[in-house]
C-alpha cells in the first residue's frame, strides 16, 4: 500500500478502502502541518487545519479528479484553509485590540500566538539560523520557499497551488531568497 502513488491511493479510498486513506494521511500529515505552521505560526491552529484539510479531502473524495500532482491539490486545500484562518484571527485581533485600547487595557501580553513552541531543536548552528530567519520572513515568502525547497514543486505546480501566474512565482521566489540571504547576513553568519 505504501508503495502506491497518491492518485492510486485516492482511487482505492473512493472505493471505500480506509487503509489507503490512512496511508495518504500518514504521508502528508507532516508536510501539511509544516506548511500550516509556516503560515499561521501557531501549533494548535496548524493541528486543527491539518485535521480540517483531511476531513475536506475525505468528504470530497467522489468529486476529486486526478490532476498533475496530488501535492498541489492537497497543499491548495490546506493553504486556503490557513488563509481563511489567518483572516479570521486578524479580524479577531483587530476587534480585541480596539476593545482593549478603548478601555486602556494592556493587551500586549495577551498574545495568542507563540511561534517558538513548535520549532524543533536543531543541533547544527547554521540550520538553526536559517530556521530562525525563515520565521522572520513574511508568510508568502515562507510558503513559497517551503513549496519549492522542501517539497520540490516546480514553478507550474507552485503557481497552481498559490493560484497565481508562473511569472509571479518566479519573482516572488527570487525576492524570498534575497530576503532570506539578507537576514542570514544580518545575523553575522558566514554562508558557506
Amino acid at each position, binding site marked *: 500500500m505504501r508503495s502506491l502513488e497518491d492518485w492510486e491511493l485516492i482511487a482505492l479510498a473512493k472505493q471505500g478502502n480506509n487503509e489507503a486513506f490512512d496511508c495518504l494521511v500518514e504521508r502528508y*500529515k*507532516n508536510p501539511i502541518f509544516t506548511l500550516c505552521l509556516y503560515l499561521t505560526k501557531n501549533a494548535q491552529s496548524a493541528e486543527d487545519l491539518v485535521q480540517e484539510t483531511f476531513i475536506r479531502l475525505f468528504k470530497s473524495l467522489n468529486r476529486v479528479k486526478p490532476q498533475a500532482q496530488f501535492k498541489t491539490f492537497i497543499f491548495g486545500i490546506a493553504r486556503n484553509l490557513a488563509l481563511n484562518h489567518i483572516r479570521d484571527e486578524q*479580524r479577531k485581533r483587530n476587534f480585541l485590540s480596539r476593545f482593549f485600547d478603548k478601555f486602556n487595557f494592556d493587551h500586549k501580553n495577551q498574545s495568542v500566538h507563540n511561534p517558538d513552541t513548535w520549532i524543533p531543536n536543531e543541533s547544527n548552528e547554521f540550520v538553526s539560523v536559517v530556521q530562525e530567519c525563515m520565521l522572520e520572513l513574511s508568510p508568502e515568502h515562507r510558503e513559497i520557499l517551503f513549496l519549492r525547497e522542501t517539497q520540490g514543486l516546480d514553478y507550474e505546480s507552485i503557481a497552481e497551488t498559490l493560484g497565481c501566474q508562473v511569472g509571479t512565482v518566479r519573482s516572488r521566489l527570487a525576492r524570498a531568497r534575497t530576503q532570506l540571504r539578507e537576514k542570514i547576513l544580518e545575523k553575522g553568519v558566514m554562508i558557506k
Partner: protein
Amino acid sequence: MRHLTDEQISELLDGFITLSDKQQKHLKSCPECTKKLEEWHHISQYVQCLPLASLSEEASLKISREIKQVEDNPYQPILAPFKKWNYKLITASAMCLLLVLVGIPWVYNYYYQTEETTNTAVSTQTTTETNQIASNNANIVIQEEETLTDRDIFMNLSEEYTDMEPVKEELYSITISDLMLSLAEETDMFNTSM
C-alpha cells in the same frame, strides 16, 4: 555587461533557465554574481534540510476519529463553525436577542399608547355627544313647554285619562262602613278643630 538579476540567478539555481553564452561568460568573470549564486545554493541546501514539524500522535488519532465519524454519518454536516468561537454567529445571535429585548417593550408601548389615546378620544367624543343630545332635548322640552297652550295641556291630560282604565275593584270595594268611618273622622276633625 550588466549583472544577472535575482530572478535569473534564482531560475539558474532551480535549473529552469539556460544562460546565453554572454551571460555564462559574465557569470564566470563576475565574482559578485558567482558569490551570490554560491550563497543561494548553500542556503537552498540548508532550507531543504530543514526538518518537517511532526504532528503529535494525539492529533493524528483525532484526525482518524473525525474521519471515522464523517464516514459513519456521511450526510451529517460537520459542525466546524461551532468547534471554535464563531464570532459572526455570536454577533448575529446577540443582535437578535437585543432586537427582541428592545422590540417587545417598544411594540407593547406603541400599541398600549395607541389604544389609550383612542379610548380617551372615544370617551371625550361620547361625552360631548351626550351633552349635546341632552341640551338638544332640553331645548326641545323648553320649546314644547313654551308652545303648549292650556288647551293642549287639557287635551294631553284627557288623553292620559282616557287611556287609563278605571279601577273598578277599588271603587266597588268601598263599603258603607268605610264611608261611615270617613264621615266619623271628618266630624271628629270638625269637633277637635272647634
